[in-house]
């Protein structure tokens, strides 16, 4: 039995690896080969943003779904990550124009350029931005540790309110003029390394990696989170979620583990924020409102609290719906007919109704607390085809079991 299981899991891993490889080949083709039809033009930003939001959702799920801490501070930590990233990747030559009201700013330093002086501009952009992304996560984590000390003693709703307050404070601080030499006050940051800078020129031909890059970072981060969740610490987090009193009585230090989960979650929120900055090419503290946190929370709930794959699926679906599939509702026309309802903002109405339906009929989200697995999909397909032609399957299963 165990041998068969091992074989199965090995097979599953191979299928998963093949799927991932196929995905990356597809992304490469989208970046470089496919003509930029309107379909591709719509698809690429949805893919990039969907990947980034997957990471943000999974990091929020680690805290809210797996540790049971109801925190609403996501946008604040994203803001810290995004600003850290942007500040350290703006080219020195551009400082004068970006920080035009602050005499070129205080930080005359750019990580991609420093790396670029050794590895050339391509390597500089790639490794420099990776270092800046990690730095962004670390700064967010440090802030999380400082805030966690007073805040993590609170429970449920109170924790949510405290973290929500933190988001507002952070947003105000980053727009404060006295810090303008670093944060550029209420003006936007721009001209830093973005996804479009991820390209490699070999012998005249330019290969672009604008879509692959976010997928790569996000996948690595999610793998780390999944490994954490399945480790001894992840089990301790779940124990705290299920019953704090019992967890403490079994020797799990509540404060230490809550802090750990909070800091790790915020690290990845910071990374997500940095990626979002790369995606948007300009950032402004003003846009990191608590509505952003609610949006992520909504995706987590739709995907299923306590399910990593659910969060990813929900993030892609949500982004695709809001940015692409429901666009036609705002355009005023449907199949060539002009419909009076279809005007600006109607998309949001339909979207809200869709979400309400999901929450009503899938109260535990798309995935509940289960995970997507290939054997699960295979089982589902088998069941479906079994319903279609019962007889054939029965015979097959009989022989299969033997």
């Amino acid at each position, binding site marked *: 039995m165990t041998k068969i299981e091992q074989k199965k899991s090995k097979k599953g891993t191979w299928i998963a690896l093949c799927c991932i490889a196929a995905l990356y080949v597809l992304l490469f083709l989208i970046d470089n080969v496919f003509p930029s039809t309107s379909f591709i033009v719509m698809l690429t930003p949805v893919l990039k943003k969907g990947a980034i939001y997957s990471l943000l959702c999974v990091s929020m799920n680690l805290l809210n779904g797996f540790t049971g801490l109801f925190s609403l501070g996501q946008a604040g930590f994203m803001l810290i990550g995004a600003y850290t990233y942007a500040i350290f990747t703006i080219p020195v030559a551009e400082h004068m124009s970006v920080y035009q009201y602050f005499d070129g700013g205080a930080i005359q330093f750019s990580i991609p350029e420093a790396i670029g002086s050794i590895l050339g501009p391509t390597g500089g952009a790639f490794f420099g931005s990776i270092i800046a992304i990690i730095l962004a996560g670390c700064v967010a984590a440090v802030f999380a540790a400082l805030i966690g000390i007073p805040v993590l003693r609170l429970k449920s709703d109170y924790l949510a309110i405290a973290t929500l307050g933190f988001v507002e404070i952070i947003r105000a601080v980053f727009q404060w003029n006295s810090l303008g030499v670093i944060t550029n006050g209420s003006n936007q940051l721009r001209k830093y390394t973005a996804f479009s800078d991820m390209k490699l020129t070999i012998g005249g031909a330019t290969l672009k990696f604008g879509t692959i890059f976010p997928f790569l970072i996000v996948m690595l981060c999610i793998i*780390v989170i999944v*490994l*954490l969740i399945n*480790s*001894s*610490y992840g*089990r*301790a987090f*779940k*124990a705290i*979620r*299920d*019953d704090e*009193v*019992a*967890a*403490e*009585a*079994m*020797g*799990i*230090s*509540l*404060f230490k583990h809550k802090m*750990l989960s909070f800091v*790790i979650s915020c690290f990845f929120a910071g990374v997500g924020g940095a990626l979002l900055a790369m995606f948007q090419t300009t950032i402004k503290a003003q846009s990191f409102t608590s509505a952003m946190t609610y949006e992520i929370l909504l995706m987590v709930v739709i995907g299923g609290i*306590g399910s990593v794959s659910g969060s990813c699926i929900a993030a892609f679906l949500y982004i695709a719906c809001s940015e692409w599939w429901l666009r036609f509702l705002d355009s005023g026309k449907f199949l060539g007919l002009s419909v009076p309802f279809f005007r600006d903002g109607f998309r949001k109405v339909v979207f809200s109704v869709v979400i309400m339906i999901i929450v009503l009929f899938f109260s535990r989200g798309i995935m509940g*607390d289960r995970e997507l697995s290939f054997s699960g999909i295979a089982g589902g397909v088998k069941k479906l085809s079994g319903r279609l032609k019962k007889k054939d399957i029965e015979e097959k299963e009989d022989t299969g079991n033997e």
Partner: protein
Amino acid sequence: MSENKAASEVKNVLHVENVTMQFGGVVAVNNLSLDIPQNRIIALIGPNGAGKTTAFNCITGVYQPTNGLVEFMGKPMVRSHPTGKMKKQYKGENAEMYVGNGIINPTPDKITRLGIARTFQNIRLWKSMTVFDNVLVAKHMRAKQNVFSATFRGNAKEERRMRDETMSLLEEQGLDKVKDDLATSLPYGLQRRLEIARALATDPKLLLLDEPAAGMNPQETQELAEFIKEIREKYKLTVFLIEHHMDLVMRISDYIYVIDFGSEIARGVPMEIQNNQRVIDAYLGVAEDE
């Protein structure tokens, strides 16, 4: 007093001295003192609302006692005296006795780390986890690892050791057949047993059982009595239990403390307790004179 203490220090696992727990104006535990010698089964009994579970919570760090001292293996583990508002409100005795020494108030996880494990009156298993995981999580405390080595699988050996130990513990407790079931799907008796197994997984020296026989039928109670004796031998445990089932208490206890309205009313071996008039009165009520 102090000579007595010195002599008993070696063999007493737990020494509770003048512990008082006052909530607002209500004294839930009043000046409770008890000693728990090594490798014995000691019971704490009393009618409903007598303060038994509160006493447990004071020992395990869930509550900070208002006043008193708890020593574990001869070292002070919990020490407290009335402070702030409670100084004026305090109704108990020995208010000045522990003032000089400072407060020691560890969190429950630190006390568990010292070697005291407990079960709960209303079963508190982790609902979304399997039987196996419930026990495995209790092994987390003593695992030699940090978050990086655990996440990136730097210590596969440690993880394997935890899993093997969990498996052998489940086998010993007869829970290996249901190891992949959800903890809450088990029948009541097995849930109790799982809770004890989970407590054992923390490698305790002292096991505190809060009404282990609650909701059990006589047959199950009988099995439980055997089970408690068995684990005491096997794991060289000291057991301290709260119980309502008199026959269970009388059968397995070496020594019994009886409390009512927070105060001790009797102590002794089972025979003495059975014949103690104050205990009978507390349980059955005092007959009023005509």
